[in-house]
């Protein structure tokens, strides 16, 4: 009896105001209900392509709400898609190499250039409702978020220790039980961390794509992104600052209210033999845990759902035998699979042919323009990378080698990094316009805003991982400053640096799409570059140019990854890995 009691409700110390917390949880649930209803009403309303955006600060909460709903839906879609994709890829050896290759490529393609076609397609698919335009934007955020989540889930599934799988087989777990008791818990930590990255990327895209012009058809959805863009366009500094402040507020709140509790909670899924001393603490999580309602209700509801499922699954014939882990007999391929594969192939071929046909209208002059643009953007991206590396390496190493400093700097930098660079860009633009500078420097600055953080974090982590005995050796033998850097620090942070640079390079390419072309106060600022050409083509509705520019960007990113980064990665893995 006593045991049952402790199991049902773990004793929580310091339950001071459980009633208030319960009340709070209930109120939140009610508010959520209302929000869902009102969003539904707006979505199912008549489509208004260009919603008038009020620049009054009082309107900000509503816009913030719409943006957050978009984010939330896009994120939930990404998460479910990622889990399904990862699962299929991990357990179907036949399609696995294909699916991983697709992931690899899609992960490195800048999503922003897909915006116009995606929105158009969605409006045609769901005519007569605001939902169509909304779905276009949501789908775009989704494509920016989903790939690293899918990759994380896939690689988690692939790294589950063999005897854990064997245990689940020998005890005849159903697929359902394996998913909830083995696969999902094992993947949780990876999913949480990647969610943070994904949502930050989502904000970046959201602010850019809530309003855009495409030939004669303009779209503007009520939201923070539109608000900031309208403010920039009107040169309304007050509104602009208020908008950016709201974005920062939301980002900080998400960090404190969502990510920190999640990270603290996911600690229990660490696959470790010994309990580690370091824990992330989250007051919110502790508060929630002290709520009677929150602590016991989900568990009870869940077991209501779960019990019948387990009983039913246990009755099925499949659950009575042990499934071998290395079934070498070729499974019969159902004809449906072939039919699906054939259908996919036909659709892909047809679409590729159509695209190729579209490219016929490209002239030699266009091509030259694109090539010049590609070269310019390539230089710009690498310049941004070099500048980032130049300042982040010394700063990161200084912070990483000083634990006290690291404790202060890291959380601040984390928040700074998750504020979307797109939100700061308007300020930068307006400053440039006032100073009369060109967009050339501005675009590099924007890329910097978005990318330097990845490198900084990785350098800090790398510096922290340099074993102290190696550092002591360096001190003991009185290494000169030069020796210290070349023999100890640079090799030590190399693997981390490369990881950071790869991520940063992807981010910089993505940023180029919006950094090289902009409207401020009736003026169009642009520099030569692929990104600018994508935007210009969108503005004028020239789809062939858009397509070719997108192909160029994708090709360059993928080639760079294959030729440069992958080799450096390999080098880091083999030569510069510090293995205890």
């Amino acid at each position, binding site marked *: 009896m006593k045991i049952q009691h402790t199991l049902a409700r773990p004793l929580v110390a310091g339950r001071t105001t459980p009633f208030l917390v319960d009340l709070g949880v209930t109120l939140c649930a009610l508010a959520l209900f209302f929000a869902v209803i009102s969003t539904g009403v707006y979505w199912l309303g008549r489509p208004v392509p260009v919603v008038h955006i009020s620049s009054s600060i009082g309107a900000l909460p509503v816009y913030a709400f719409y943006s957050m709903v978009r984010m939330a839906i896009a994120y939930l879609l990404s998460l479910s898609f990622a889990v399904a994709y990862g699962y299929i890829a991990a357990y179907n050896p036949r399609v696995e190499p294909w699916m991983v290759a697709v992931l690899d490529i899609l992960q490195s393609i800048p999503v922003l250039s897909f915006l116009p076609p995606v929105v158009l397609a969605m409006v045609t698919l769901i005519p007569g409702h605001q939902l169509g335009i909304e779905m276009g934007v949501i789908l775009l955020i989704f494509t920016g978020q989903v790939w690293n989540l899918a990759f994380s889930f896939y690689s988690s599934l692939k790294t589950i220790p063999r005897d854990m799988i064997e245990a689940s087989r*020998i005890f005849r777990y159903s697929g359902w039980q394996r998913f909830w008791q083995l696969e999902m*818990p094992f993947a949780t930590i990876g999913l949480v961390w990647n969610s943070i990255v994904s949502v930050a990327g989502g904000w970046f895209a959201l602010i850019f794509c809530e309003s855009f012009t495409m030939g004669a058809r303009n779209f503007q959805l009520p939201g923070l992104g539109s608000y900031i863009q309208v403010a920039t366009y009107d040169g309304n500094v007050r509104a602009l600052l208020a908008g950016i402040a709201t974005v920062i507020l939301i980002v900080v709140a998400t960090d404190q209210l969502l990510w920190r509790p999640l990270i603290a909670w996911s600690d229990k899924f660490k*696959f470790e033999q010994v309990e580690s001393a370091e824990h992330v603490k989250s007051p919110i999580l502790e508060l929630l845990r002290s709520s009677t309602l929150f602590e016991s209700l989900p568990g009870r509801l869940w077991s209501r759902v779960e*019990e019948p499922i387990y009983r039913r699954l246990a009755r099925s014939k499949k*659950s009575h*035998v042990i499934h*071998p882990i290395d079934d070498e007999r070729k499974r019969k391929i159902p004809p449906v699979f072939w039919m699906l594969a054939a259908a996919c192939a036909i659709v892909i071929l047809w679409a590729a042919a159509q695209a190729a046909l579209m490219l016929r209208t490209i002239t030699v002059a266009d091509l030259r323009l694109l090539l010049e643009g590609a070269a310019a953007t390539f230089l710009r991206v690498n310049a941004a990378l070099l500048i980032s590396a130049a300042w982040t390496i010394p700063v990161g190493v200084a912070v990483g080698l000083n634990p006290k400093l690291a404790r202060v700097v890291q959380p601040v930098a984390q928040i700074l990094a998750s504020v979307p660079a797109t939100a700061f860009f308007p300020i930068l633009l307006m400053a440039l316009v006032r100073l009369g500078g060109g967009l050339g420097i501005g675009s590099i600055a924007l890329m910097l805003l978005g990318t330097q953080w990845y490198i900084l974090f990785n350098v800090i982590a790398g510096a922290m991982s340099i074993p102290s005995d190696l550092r002591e050796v360096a001190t003991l033998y009185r290494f000169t400053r030069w020796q210290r850097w070349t023999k100890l620090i640079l090799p030590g942070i190399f693997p981390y640096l490369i990881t950071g640079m790869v991520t940063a390079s992807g981010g910089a390419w993505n940023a180029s799409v919006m950094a090289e072309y902009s409207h401020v106060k009736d003026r169009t600022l642009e520099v030569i570059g692929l990104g600018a050409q994508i935007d210009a083509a969108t503005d004028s509705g020239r789809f062939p140019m858009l397509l070719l520019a997108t192909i160029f960007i994708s090709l360059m990113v993928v080639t760079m990854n294959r030729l440069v980064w992958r080799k450096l990665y390999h080098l880091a893995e083999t030569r510069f890995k510090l293995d205890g």
Partner: protein
Amino acid sequence: MQETVTSSQASGAPAVVEAIIRAEKVEKFYAQPSQNRIQVISATDLEIVPGEILALLGPSGSGKSTMLRMLTGLSTPTAGQVYWHGQPIAQAEVNVSIVFQSFALFPWLTVLENVEAPLQARGVSSSERRERSLKMLDTVGLDGFESAYPKELSGGMRQRVGFARALVVEPEVLFMDEPFSALDVLTAENLRSELLELWSKKTMPTKAVFIVTHNIEEAVLLADRIVVLGRNPGHIRTNFRVQLPQPRDRKSESFTQLVDYIYKVLTRPDTEPAAVPEQQIGPRIRDQRQMRYQMLPHARPGGIAGLLELLLDKGGRDDIYRLADDLAFEIDDLLPIVDAAQLLGFLTIEEGDAAITPAGEQFANSEILRQKELFRNAAVENVLLLRQICRAVDTKSDHTVPEEFFLDLLDEQFSEEECLRQLETAVTWGRYAELFDFDAARRRFVLPDALGDEAEADEEAK
């Protein structure tokens, strides 16, 4: 049950005992990236019959684990077939469990949830699940740890959870893949003897146990039958019954002969194994589990000597109660002394009578220095703890060992209070026998003369 009958008919000869699992000419190949396949196990027959602990020994790379996985149905043989009660294993409702070397517990589930999970897979209702799991946890000695997480437990306790999880489904065959090799020696020994106890008392519903190990002594200690595998590719070198009675004595001649025999088989992979040495099925030489600490009775050496002298006066044999009466002792005060004398091999107890042994007689008849010597020999011979303390003090370069070291060893088995009392008694005996001394100031065991020498040194310094 229908299948069992048909299969024994099909195989023609009526089997003496129907095998639970039977492997027929199983082979295993692993595919290499470069087209060619590597054979890990060549055609092998193996049977697991009820009532038997079967140990599979072999050098690394002999396919022990692969064999275990094929027998459980976790791995499909490349050729040949495994039968479960005569039915191909892939189609049968197999009821087996595995205890893993790495425990393979789910770190995000509590101890109770870990044990409940296999029952959940079988659709057992939640209340029955809880009841059965708690009972099993109780059986393996984890009462009160239900809501702990595995990472909060020590290695030995984690493997207990592994056992509870394996046994809760009441498997017909319990498979163990080097279950004790991730544990320290003492914990492993403890778990091993508890497993034997569960098995011999039929506390677990299991009909057969299959253990994969690379530890020869472990195999000889546990198994009723030992199969030794050779490698390149894996094949059976020898397969024989162990007929030593349980509990087995590591020191007995038959035991060491068997261990030597297996050692020779393993180290000479190219020579045909010789005949299995004859196993003496005689009485046990020493009635104790090796390596497990005996409970030291809290008696003083002087008391033991006194008791033995009295007994000698009475003709070498007397009723224990009468002895207590004669000495005007409460029986509870006398018993520790009797136990101590028995532990040292100075007397034996037969139907309530204490009888002096030749060693005891010699002891009682000797003068004090000789007595110390006899006591010393008897103590080192018979008392594990004293033997360990001596050895530790001797081996260490500074010849001192902290008390904590032994407290840690003892607390697997005794309560905290009892550990202290055990060490106290050990110190009394060790001092008497001049085996070692105890430096109470530093709480360390030292060489017998070290304290005196140090005191002298101190005095000289002054």
